[in-house]
């Protein structure tokens, strides 16, 4: 009951935060010099004042700031993020077409990094001076130090260009036809390299942290108690110790959610993954303000939902947090 209550409070805060993000995004964009009218007139090779005024009144840009803000927020509440003149489509539709691809990439990369990171962390914590431990430390440093686009290009050259194991770009092969599973395998084949690339940065973080916390937990009194009960090594490590060392890793994963999304922009660009990242990149180049705003809004949404899920996961793992809001 208390769990539900605190979760609802969290959701309420999340909505307040989202509105704040909306206002801030819009204000910042408004502060920046130039507007849609300028960009349109530029792309037409110049326009006179009359045309500019007409464009501005068409887009409602001649209204006072607060009115524009109010309209924008009212629009967002009805899932209307404005109209992209560059793509000639409603922004909501544009984003909704791209969002699943980004979510697929971000969520799978995050999960891969988490599970593999924790697993490697546990292995190296059990034998801190073993070969695996040194290998994990090396991989972690490498993954963290290497720029993500460079890792991506390297993987592309190795596995796609030379070995032909994976496709070079995109998310699906348009020439393929077949049932659900055929398409599933196709998307998976496209997904693997970008996923590994994106996960590599976070894998480093998570495995280092998991290793450190696991080593600490393995030396704790309750692990000694678990051993004194005659439990097997597996139970001591993967039940008693692991559940206790998960909290810091989950917390970090939650904090990294925004970093994962910004990482996705780079990875999507390298692999031509048809997600929000590619869209963001293109619309920034085209100065497509409504689309940029929309993407910022959705990124904030994903981060906030991610944090909310982190919060819930933490409460599930650690009963001591359940009563607190």
């Amino acid at each position, binding site marked *: 009951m208390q769990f539900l209550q605190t979760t609802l409070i969290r959701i309420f805060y999340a909505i307040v935060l989202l509105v704040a993000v909306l206002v801030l995004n819009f204000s910042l964009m408004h502060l920046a010099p130039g507007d849609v009218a300028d960009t349109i007139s530029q792309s037409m090779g110049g326009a006179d004042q009359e045309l500019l005024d007409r464009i501005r009144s068409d887009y409602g840009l001649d209204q006072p700031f607060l009115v524009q803000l109010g309209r924008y927020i009212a629009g967002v509440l009805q899932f209307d993020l404005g109209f992209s003149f560059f793509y000639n489509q409603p922004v909501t539709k544009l984003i909704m077409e791209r969002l699943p691809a980004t979510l697929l990439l971000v969520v799978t990369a995050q999960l891969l990094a988490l599970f593999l990171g924790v697993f490697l962390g546990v292995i190296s914590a059990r034998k801190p001076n073993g070969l695996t431990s040194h290998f994990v430390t090396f991989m972690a440093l490498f993954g963290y130090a290497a720029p993500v686009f460079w890792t991506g290009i390297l993987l592309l050259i190795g596995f796609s260009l030379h070995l032909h194991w994976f496709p070079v770009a995109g998310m699906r092969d348009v020439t393929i036809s077949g049932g659900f599973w055929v398409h599933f395998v196709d998307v998976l084949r496209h997904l693997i390299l970008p996923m590994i690339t994106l996960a590599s940065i976070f894998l480093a973080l998570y495995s280092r942290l998991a290793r450190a916390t696991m080593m600490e937990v393995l030396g704790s*009194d309750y692990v*000694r*108690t678990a051993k004194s*009960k005659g*439990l097997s090594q597996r139970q001591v490590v993967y039940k008693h110790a692991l559940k206790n060392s998960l909290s810091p890793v989950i917390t970090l994963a939650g904090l990294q959610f925004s970093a994962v999304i910004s990482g996705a922009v780079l990875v999507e660009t390298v692999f031509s993954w048809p997600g929000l990242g590619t869209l963001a990149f293109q619309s920034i180049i085209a100065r497509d303000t409504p689309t940029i705003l929309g993407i910022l809004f959705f990124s904030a949404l994903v981060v906030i939902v991610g944090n909310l899920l982190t919060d819930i996961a933490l409460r599930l793992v650690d009963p*001591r947090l359940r009563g607190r809001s």
Partner: protein
Amino acid sequence: MAPLLEVENLRIELTTRDGIAPVIDDLSFTLNAGETLSFVGESGCGKSMTALALMGLLPDKIGRVASGKIIFNNEDLTQASDARLREIRGNDISMIFQEPMTSLNPVFTIGEQIAEVLRAHQGLSRAAAWAKAVELLDAVRIPNPKGRASDYPFQMSGGQRQRAMIAMALACEPKILIADEPTTALDVTVQAQIFDLLTDLRRQTSAAIILITHDMGAVAEMAERMIVMYAGRKAEFGPVDQIITHPRHPYTKGLISCVPHIVSDMTEERPDLIEVPGIVPSLKDFGQDRCLFASRCAYVTDKCQASRPSKKLFSNGQIADCWHAEDL
């Protein structure tokens, strides 16, 4: 009848920065079924190390049994495989730790932590193990055991946690229960309750108890025989009442005079409390061929500095490792 547990010339070495230190140096004792044997001594005298060695839980790569035997039911535990030790741990020999605050796993319910021992050793089903866990909580006098079983450790007081810990240790009706300073972290009234509980449970289960403590009062109340440890060596060994009325080792004498009203009546004018001056020698000095207590001893002579005291056996069963034991 053969004793339940026989420890022969046990030597445990710890690898430290200054080299190898014998934290337990030539320790022998026996434990009979149903008996309470107490280990007494200051911190760092090797009491807890003895307990961990009996459980086969010496710290990995740092501590090891260098020589000697631990014979339990005709089986030498120092030679037993890991798998065999796991069968014994929590089942035949179990342990209660000093810190109930940190010895229970914070993220599992009390009931689960008790039930898992039963599942591991007795092969009980989840439901049966849980039901037995509730019974055990009732046996250690936790009110509303059914409800409390699904509580987490942080929802319980220190005394209740230690009760839960005891329930966990007694779950499989062990033959030996090792209690490593079970009340040190608790306040005085709760200490008395825990000792009462242990006394009652011993009567009911006939488990032998190894009580590690520096509470002389608890020793006098609970134990039949006691071992006084100093710097990894046995200083004195024998029946509790004999040792308390007439200690034969200067260290035991010091420990006893540290405690108010063990020996004096409340009405009588009480003697001053005397402390044992100095501190336990550091690990690197352990194992030298001299009396390690000499630097703190009022009765010290040249002989004490020159060679390690030999055992002196007295007719009442007391054994003291002191050159001057007869004179005390």
